[in-house]
């Protein structure tokens, strides 16, 4: 099941790229979620042993999934509010 842990590591890299390279703010929220689930997959798959996954990482991951949704909801609220004020979804610092 190492293949899942490796996939998790690659997902972290992919999400990290999107988080930095994407200029659209909502796209960054999506990328942030990919980083998050990549970390979870790595963490969980590393706890896999003889057909079962360690329950402690499992519980922490469930906690993490809920916290990731709370963070995303707050981020989405900020992105939408920012778009209403500025008329765009790019931060001033990122404007070309």
């Amino acid at each position: 099941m190492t293949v899942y842990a490796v996939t998790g590591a690659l997902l972290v890299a992919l999400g990290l790229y999107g988080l930095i390279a994407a200029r659209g703010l909502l796209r960054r929220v999506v990328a942030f979620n990919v980083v998050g689930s990549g970390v979870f997959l790595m963490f969980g798959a590393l706890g896999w042993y003889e057909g079962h996954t360690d329950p402690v990482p499992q519980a922490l991951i469930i906690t993490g999934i809920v916290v990731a949704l709370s963070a995303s909801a707050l981020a989405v609220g900020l992105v939408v509010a920012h778009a209403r004020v500025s008329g765009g979804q790019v931060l001033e610092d990122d404007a070309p």
Partner: protein
Amino acid sequence: MAVFDLALCTLILLAALAAVAGPGLFRAVVFFVVYGVLIALAWVRLGAPDVALAEAAIGAGLTGVLLLGAVGRLSRAGADEPLTSRIDWPVALAAGLVGAMLVWAVLSLAPGPGLAPAVAEILPQTGVENPVTAVLLNLRAWDTLLESVVLLAALIGLWPLARGGAWQAAAGPVHHALPDGVLAGFGRLLPPVALLVGVYLVWAGAYQPGGAFQGGTVLAAAGVLCVMAGLVRAPGMAAPLWRLALVAGPGLFLALGVAGMAFGGFLLFPTALAKGMILAIEMVLTLSIAVTLALMVLGPPEGGGAQ
């Protein structure tokens, strides 16, 4: 079955790529939902059905609704995504380096049973039979208590973003649907079934996959559906009963945690009472989680007027 795992991992990476760097924001969000469902399948393969349920319901389901709603709101605000088709090579190199280091770290770790035997040993004293629920609500109850507070904090953080400062108005935009349409019909049919499934998931969580978070999410989804189908108006935050529903779960958790001090320490549940205490916390926490998640996904008030 190694072929299946490899194919699944490839699909996961491709869906993630389309979500992170594919063209079109709407497409990207749809691929993110697909990605979430595939990740849930991966959790099933890893023998972690509790996480699979949480990922499918929260990671793919509610996050998907949240992001799709945001796509609609952004395009109505005229804020389209800037086009970026070029690959940012320095960033790609840096992210690739981080990925390579993580892969190296993964491969250099020796597999082991971890904390599973320790949890199995103490499981009879925790009051529940599902080891994941035992960790969530007994052994690492601290994390779960603080998590329920984090949820509440995120929701409170959303309210100041209400349109026109009317934070006490009904949550989210006003939804309209044809009164005799398919959405209204299914919106009436689905909630009773969702209620049954949600409560079942909480109850079953004591001895098999399920729990307060998965059950609460199903209930939240039913609530969001009722609002989106135009069947009920979202509650306004001035209503004391809704506020009570938000804080009841963390409040009871905290109170029983303090009661645990009579038995030796904060959040220590005596074996004889553990099952009852955990079940009470889970039932009330489910209600709070459901209301908090639903209000979070509906978003800050957009001037629809309170109920």
